[in-house]
Every structure is written in structure tokens, then in C-alpha cells.
């Protein structure tokens, strides 16, 4: 039984780590801010979620489970709303007209 649980941890944590890699690569390689945001949310929700899922069998106390799940739920909540806020903030005011063109507008800020 414990072997099966360990195997479960192994698989879930590895999958979560892969999502983090995907998120980081997306953040580096995607061409504009909004698609980078998309990449980031994958790492946020799935990466952290799978890591938490994988760690659950390794923690014995029920309080520890609650804590781990609370971390993930909080990350989900803040990730979802913050994604909206960020997207709202970076979206050009005339987004709907620009949607067909490249969303990366204006000169680099820095």
C-alpha cells in the first residue's frame, strides 16, 4: 500500500514539476503579455495542484491535509482573479478593434 502511495506521489509531483517547466518556457517564449499570462496560469493551477496532490499521501495529520488543500484553493482563487485583473490592466483600451492585429502594441516600455 505504501509503495503504491509513494508511486502516486512520484507520478503526481513529477507531472506538477513538468507543468512548472511548461509555464516557465511559455513565459519565456510566448510573444505577447496575454499569452504569457495564459502560460503562467497553467503553472499556477495545475503545477501547484499536482504537487499538492502528490504530497498528500506523505503527510499523516488531517490538519496537514487541510493546510495543503487550503494552499491550493487560495492559489486557485487568487490566480483566477489576479489573472483577470492583470489582463484588464494590460489590455489596450481599444482591444476589440486591435484583436486581429498583434496584441503587442507600442514600443517596449523599458
Amino acid at each position, binding site marked *: 500500500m505504501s509503495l503504491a502511495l509513494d508511486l502516486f506521489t512520484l507520478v503526481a509531483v513529477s507531472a506538477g514539476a513538468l507543468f512548472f517547466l511548461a509555464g516557465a518556457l511559455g513565459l519565456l517564449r510566448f510573444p505577447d503579455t496575454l499569452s504569457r499570462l495564459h502560460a503562467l496560469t497553467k503553472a499556477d493551477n495545475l503545477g501547484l495542484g499536482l504537487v499538492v496532490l502528490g504530497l498528500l499521501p506523505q503527510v499523516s495529520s488531517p490538519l496537514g491535509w487541510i493546510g495543503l488543500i*487550503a494552499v491550493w484553493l*487560495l492559489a486557485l*482563487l*487568487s490566480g*483566477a*482573479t*489576479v489573472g*483577470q*485583473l492583470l489582463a*484588464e490592466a494590460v489590455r489596450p483600451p481599444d482591444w476589440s478593434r486591435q484583436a486581429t492585429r498583434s496584441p503587442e502594441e507600442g514600443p517596449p516600455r*523599458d
Partner: protein
Amino acid sequence: MTSALVVDGLLALLVLGLALRVTFARTDYGSAVGFMGYGLLLALVWVRLAAVDVALTEAAVGTGLTGFLLLGAAARLAPGESFDAPGAPGFGSRILVGLLCGVVAAGLGAVVLSLPDPAPTLAPLVAENLPPTEVANPITGVLMAHRAVDTLLETVVLIPALIGIWSLASDSGWGGRPGSLPLLRSSGPLTLLAQVLPPFGILVGIHLVWVGADEPGGKFQGAAVLAAMWVLVLVAGLRRPPAVIGQRLRLLVVLGPLVFLGIGIAGIWLARAFLAYPEGWAKPLILTIEAALTLSLALVLGMILAGPPAVDRSDPKVGP
């Protein structure tokens, strides 16, 4: 244990890289964002140093609250002068300063490498004297019993800071509501976040204070979380910061230190020393002080973030 060492090394490299990035960033804003990352990594380093209490404080106060202030300031101030601006030290003097700073760092590094072995420590003394305080977290024991005078001064230091900030208000603004918080255009997601997150945050804050007696946690960490949640509600425009002239606000601000002082002075008669606790009463008294202090600290921290009072210009815009 080699992979533990790899974790440590990677963390150290990341911290140093971000520190360099923070120093040499071209914009104030990039610097502030980098600083928040730096604080987060520092919190992880504290966990690796087996100091979860400090990690919690670093994350809540050193990163969360300080980062909020820095981001707010960077977003509103005129762009700070970059390294090439007139008035900046020339290339030669920068090299010289860099060399001298390198010497300082190297000296400190040499000290680290030549620290005595076995290390001098007060840990056995603390462990010996922990049972009378009836708390199991040694850091809480040190803060609340062994070095209570320090802790009293440290909670009191935040109140002069708040008074200092209030006294920087313009004449016309005095007595009004604090006006430094950014106020966002109300949007659905922000309102949702400001309504859903604070209940969790208050729970976490109280939890941190409560477990602080026996496990990592404590009043500063809890109060910082409570203050952050309050500021979130203020920023979303769901509530308005109280006017600094209010009696109730001022009473709550000094409540914690007053309780601390009162119990401390009562100790002169009951336990024969200032800030000493009578036998058998240490834990309930410490918990009472911590509860009162948490409330006051959360309020003070929130008001510090809210800034000096200002003329109330935003009246028509605010409101749920």
C-alpha cells in the same frame, strides 16, 4: 544530504541574482518587483535555516507590506534618476565604491568562515527557562517573557512611526481620512477578491497568533496578515479608511501597548518585577497581551500603509 545542499546553493544563487537585479534595474518599478521576489526567496532561506518564525515575518512584513509600499511609491513617483543621470557618481568613483563594498563583504565573509566552533549560544538557557513561561515556542518565550522589555519597545516603535506619518499631512488634510492608498476603478474580479479573500485571511491571521504560543507564528505575523486583508478591502473601495481624528481609532491603536504596560506594571506588585508574570499565570497573561497587541498592531500597520491624512477628494467615487 547532497540534494539538500543543492537546494541551498540554488536558493543562495537566486537570492544573489535578484539582489543584483534589484540594484541595477533601470526602472524603480522593476526594482520594486524584483525586491518582492527577493523577499520571497529570503523567506525560503529562513525555512532552510530552521527559523520558520522569521520566515513568516519576512514574508508578511518584509515582503508583503514593504513591497506594497515600494510598488505604490514606484508607480506614483516621477521616474528616479538612473545610473547615467547627472549627479550620479562617475564611473571611477563607482568602481572605487564597488571595490570598498567588496572589501566589506569579503570581511564579513571571512568572519562567517572563522566563526568559533562550537558556536556560542543561549539556546540551552532558553530551553532551561522555557517551562515557567508555559509556552512551547521558544521564540514566543523569548519575545514575551525573557526579553519582554524589547518587545514592548518594538510594538511601541510602530506608534511613533504612525504619528510621524500622520504629522507629515498637509495643513488642509489634517484630521481627514488617509489618502495614500491607490483606489482602483471598481471591477468585478477585484470586488470578488476583496470579498472572498479577507475571511480566509482573518482566519489565517488568528490562526497564526493562536499557534504562535506553541508553534511557529505570532502576533506580528498575524497582525500583518490582518492588515493586508484590511488594506485589500480599502483598495477595492468596499470600505473607507477611518479619519485619523476619530477617538475610537486612537483608543484601539494604543490598546495593545496599554494592556502590555498595565500587566507589566501590575507585575511589580504581583511578581516583584516590572513585566514579570505571577507564577501559574504566565500563559493566560501572555495570550491576553498577544490578543490585544494583535488588534492594535493590525490597525497600526494598516494605517501606516494608508499613509498621511489628506483632503477628501474622492468622495463621489468611493462607496460600495
